[in-house]
């Protein structure tokens, strides 16, 4: 209870405080501290929730079960490491004069605001509040993406704004329909939007309304998640703005959208008793993986490459959850964890590489292995991890997903495997050229003295965790994952 309060209040207070004090040098510490508070609270909350009943707080406003606790844990942890990383990032950017004081303040405040919105979305019981929090997070990220006010950034942010706005509006319509369906069962009191109530009556919901509702929700949250025909905003938005926020965008925001979709899928599955929702998710997930695999090779910008990789992984996740069942859901959750950790870690590395080279174009980043070995290793290992190579945790999760897919849909699995090979080929080619080869003179030599040993720590920490998750997963965590997947898969 207190943990929940801390979890929500810490970032909110942090946001307010940073909105006032954000330009001071200590602001970075404050930022870290607020995130650390939230992370600690999330851990406490998780310990409270796992192996016991879900928590309902403030009447029925907040609801934390195993799934949301897990997501909260990931979210706050990645937020924390991002805060640590961004402290260093900002130090260099400010020192180079690329970040003004005002921007720094906005950045910090928005960062905490995003964290708050994400936590709110994950802990809200009402689907409506979840929607509101999602929208708030979107709006905040839009502002951060456009923070440096270059034309490209503005254009990307605008696209993000419009596309996600439309998307999330459809999700709102879907939510309204959901409410309508629930209202017909439990009457027009406030409980008709609460997940706990909806989940309880999900088999009695009207299938026709739910079908339409889920279709709209799928389109809506799918847009936020970057499912393929709806992904137009994603590569551009991820290529702009301060890189640490891109890490949050890619590692967390997409996940939270997926979380929302999963909650809706549980209801849809309950109401429909047919795997329509699952089929939708598998189909569009596969489309995403295939398209991303084809286009990964055409990318020239490092962050866009990673963004397309996120699209690919969102496709994988969609497939995993679409397959349904305990094992596939477990795999999906594991994949989600792994992707959040590894992808944000990769963005940390990418941020350093971009700072080092002075350009985000991959053609301008060369020979990291000779120039910055630690960075090169974190980038290389991160790439191998994101490509699903062992011993990182994306390997077992992809393994499980593929194995279930082969059992259920062998031909689709064949397509998936081909796409994975293609994606592997494309990403490896690009990353190889960045890491190996002759050392080039850094474009911005001034960065060298600004570098500290701690710079690499967040990325390496993420990799280490993914490794740990992949190689020797603690039994406790495994049980947590199983409980969380039980929320989705029943």
């Amino acid at each position: 209870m207190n943990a929940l309060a801390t979890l929500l209040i810490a970032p909110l207070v942090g946001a307010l405080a940073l909105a006032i004090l954000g330009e001071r040098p200590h602001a970075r510490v404050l930022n870290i501290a607020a995130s650390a508070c939230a992370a600690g609270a999330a851990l406490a909350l998780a310990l409270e929730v796992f192996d016991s009943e879900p928590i309902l707080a403030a009447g029925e406003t907040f609801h934390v079960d195993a799934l949301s606790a897990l997501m909260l844990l990931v979210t706050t942890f990645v937020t924390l490491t991002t805060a640590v990383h961004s402290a260093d990032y900002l130090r260099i950017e400010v020192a180079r004069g690329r970040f003004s004081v005002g921007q720094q303040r906005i950045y910090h405040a928005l960062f905490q605001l995003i964290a708050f919105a994400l936590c709110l979305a994950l802990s809200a019981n009402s689907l409506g509040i979840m929607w509101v929090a999602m929208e708030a997070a979107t709006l905040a990220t839009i502002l951060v993406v456009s923070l440096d006010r270059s034309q490209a950034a503005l254009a990307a942010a605008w696209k993000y704004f419009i596309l996600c706005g439309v998307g999330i509006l459809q999700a709102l319509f879907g939510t309204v329909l959901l409410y309508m369906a629930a209202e017909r069962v439990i009457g027009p009191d406030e409980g008709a939007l609460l997940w706990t109530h909806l989940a309880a009556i999900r088999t009695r919901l009207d299938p026709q309304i739910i079908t339409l509702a889920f279709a709209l929700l799928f389109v809506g949250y799918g847009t936020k998640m970057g499912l393929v025909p709806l992904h137009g905003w994603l590569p551009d938005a991820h290529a702009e703005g301060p890189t640490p926020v891109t890490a949050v965008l890619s590692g967390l925001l997409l996940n939270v959208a997926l979380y929302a979709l999963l909650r809706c899928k549980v209801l849809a599955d309950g109401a429909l008793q047919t795997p329509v929702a699952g089929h939708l998710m598998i189909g569009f997930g596969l489309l995403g993986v295939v398209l991303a695999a084809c286009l990964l090779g055409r990318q020239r910008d490092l962050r866009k490459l990673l963004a397309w990789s996120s699209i690919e992984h969102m496709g994988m996740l969609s497939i995993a959850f679409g397959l349904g069942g305990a094992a596939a859901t477990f795999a999906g959750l594991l994949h989600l964890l792994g992707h959040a950790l590894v992808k944000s870690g990769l963005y940390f590395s990418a941020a350093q590489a971009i700072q080092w080279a002075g350009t985000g174009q991959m053609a301008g980043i060369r020979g990291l292995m000779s120039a910055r070995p630690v960075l090169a290793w974190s980038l290389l290992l991160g790439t191998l991890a994101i490509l699903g190579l062992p011993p990182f945790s994306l390997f077992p999760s992809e393994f499980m997903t593929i194995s279930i897919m082969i059992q259920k849909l062998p031909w689709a699995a064949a397509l998936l495997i081909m796409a994975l090979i293609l994606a592997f080929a494309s990403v490896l080619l690009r990353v190889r050229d960045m890491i190996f080869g002759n050392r080039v003179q850094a474009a911005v030599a001034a960065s060298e003295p600004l570098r500290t040993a701690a710079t690499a720590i967040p990325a390496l920490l993420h990799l280490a965790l993914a490794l740990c998750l992949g190689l020797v997963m603690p039994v406790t965590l495994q049980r947590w994952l199983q409980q969380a997947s039980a929320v989705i898969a029943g």
Partner: protein
Amino acid sequence: MNDLSTVGLQLIDLLAAVSLLLAFGLLIQRRLTALIDFYALQSLVLVIVTSLVGWLTGQRHLYLSAALTMVLKVLLIPILLYRLVRRLRLETSHDTLVKLPATLLLGLLLVIFAFDVARPIAQLSTAIASGTLGIALAGILVGFLMMISRSRAISQVIAFLAMENGVFLAATAVTHGMPMVVELGIAVDVLIGVLILGVFLFHLQDAADSLEAGGPASPTARLERSGPETPKPRKARTQTP
């Protein structure tokens, strides 16, 4: 139900139809100022519907919602938009990507589609104005179409807001309004969204001025287009020492 409520229900259906009509108006209107007017009118219809539903069902919070809509969507946002248009000197500019008859035809098809999709739900619905769902859906789709058919950012935002009106129409007419917290949240989000839009449009203008000083005669006209085709490498950023 008494006669009064029957009349009320018919009135709601009528107002919903008016809202759809206004959506079509938005779709075919080219002048930005007229677009804003139509949006305000549509919002006003929404206010009336909301209060009507509140009156019919006796749910007090719907009045609050109506008031909120009145303040926000009928007054505040149109005023903001007007100021924007004036600041950006866009009062007389036109914009459409697709030819009008084609747009209309597409809109018509969308309406048919929406009614068809909503029909089974409307049949089983016991809510006060079940037919409204189809109309609301049609409104949303038409808004979407408008968004696609416009290239100017501000028209897209108006389309977006019109879509949002459609959602709200559904929310109030088909259900008995969303829970208050949610409505408040949505309202705040919309407000922030529009504020962001304002910030954006100015930034776009700034960027245009700083990047293309002494460039073509009407830099705004080009930059007002929502997405520059290929974002240039950020020279300005990388070259700063």
